[in-house]
């Protein structure tokens, strides 16, 4: 759940694909000579500098795009201001509250929480790692109760994304013996 613009990602992949398609078509045409296209001539010094600068600009753009992926994280979950001042609660606190509530559910191995900003709203993402054979209904309902008590603590309702995941740790944890 990051802010990465997915459509632009796909457009970039399509552009890279089309670029390679053009190269493939070009050199295939040189090989089989179906269409008459102009030949590439050995470039003059001026064009060499232009080519080098274009490469540099494209590299800088690519590095900028790569470096800006994965944004949208937020530290603060809720901020409230009243007569007595200004208070805020971090996502970590919410994670601890939820994890405390879920400690006694045997199917749950691990709980982590992250806050994300999605179209202007803070969304709390809870990743709950379960044992291999978990009672999913029980897990979802337990997290639902924990979130309800979080609502009470925060005195407001924030959007929550629950992701029930099977992690590496879940596979290593011993399965419950069922008779």
């Amino acid at each position, binding site marked *: 759940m990051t802010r990465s613009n997915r459509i632009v990602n796909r457009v970039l*992949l399509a552009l890279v694909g*089309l670029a390679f398609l053009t190269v493939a078509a070009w050199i*295939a045409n040189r090989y089989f000579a179906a269409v008459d296209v102009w030949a590439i001539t050995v470039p003059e010094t001026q064009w060499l500098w232009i080519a080098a600068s274009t490469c540099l600009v*494209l590299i800088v753009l690519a590095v900028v795009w790569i470096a800006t992926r994965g944004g949208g994280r937020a530290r603060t979950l809720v901020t409230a201001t009243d007569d007595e001042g200004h208070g805020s609660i971090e996502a970590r606190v919410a994670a601890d509250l939820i994890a405390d509530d879920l400690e006694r559910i045997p199917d749950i191995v691990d709980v982590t929480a992250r806050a994300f900003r999605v179209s202007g709203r803070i969304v709390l993402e809870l990743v709950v790692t379960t044992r291999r054979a978990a009672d999913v209904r029980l897990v979802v309902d337990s997290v639902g109760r924990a*979130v309800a008590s979080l609502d009470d603590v925060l005195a407001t309702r924030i959007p929550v994304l629950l992701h029930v995941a099977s992690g590496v740790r879940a596979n290593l944890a011993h*399965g419950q013996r069922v008779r």
Partner: protein
Amino acid sequence: MTSEFPIYRRVVRRSLHRSRSAAVIVALVLASLGLAWIGTEAVLAAISAAPLLLTPEQIVEALEKPGVIAIATAAVLAVIGLVLAIAPGRRARHEIPDARMAVIVDDGVLAGALSKAAVRDSRLPESRVSTVVSRRSGAVTVVPTSGTLLNAPAITRAVTGVVESLDPRPQLRVAVAVSERGVVGS
């Protein structure tokens, strides 16, 4: 899904599909390396220094007299890029309707839940039940103990009950298969 937060539709859609960021990063890193090499050769040729690998003249010559390998490589890379751009990129996850939260469950976890129901009902050891969950179907395979009968309809009811209680989206159709050959032992 009915819920108090309209944002959930967006959140769930983003969780069920890949962002393609990893693919874009790999593509851009490779493209940057290629561009860096071409740029360096261009500068070296412009200042009349010795080339790293090939001079621009040799690059042009290679492009003008290509081999089948070059064509095939470019075509394969083009297909990979276009497929990654167009394919839906679904993750192996299902959405579970909930009044308060947006809930996403990995297919592996769903498979575990179905296996658990089958194990409970059949009283077989966990190792005898395996489940595969794909986008629209769940297949539970049960290996019975030799010489005993399994109540397949009861297991099917138990597994279907779990699916109905979860109501995953896209909907799952489950099938329970009892293996023809049993195994000896508990």
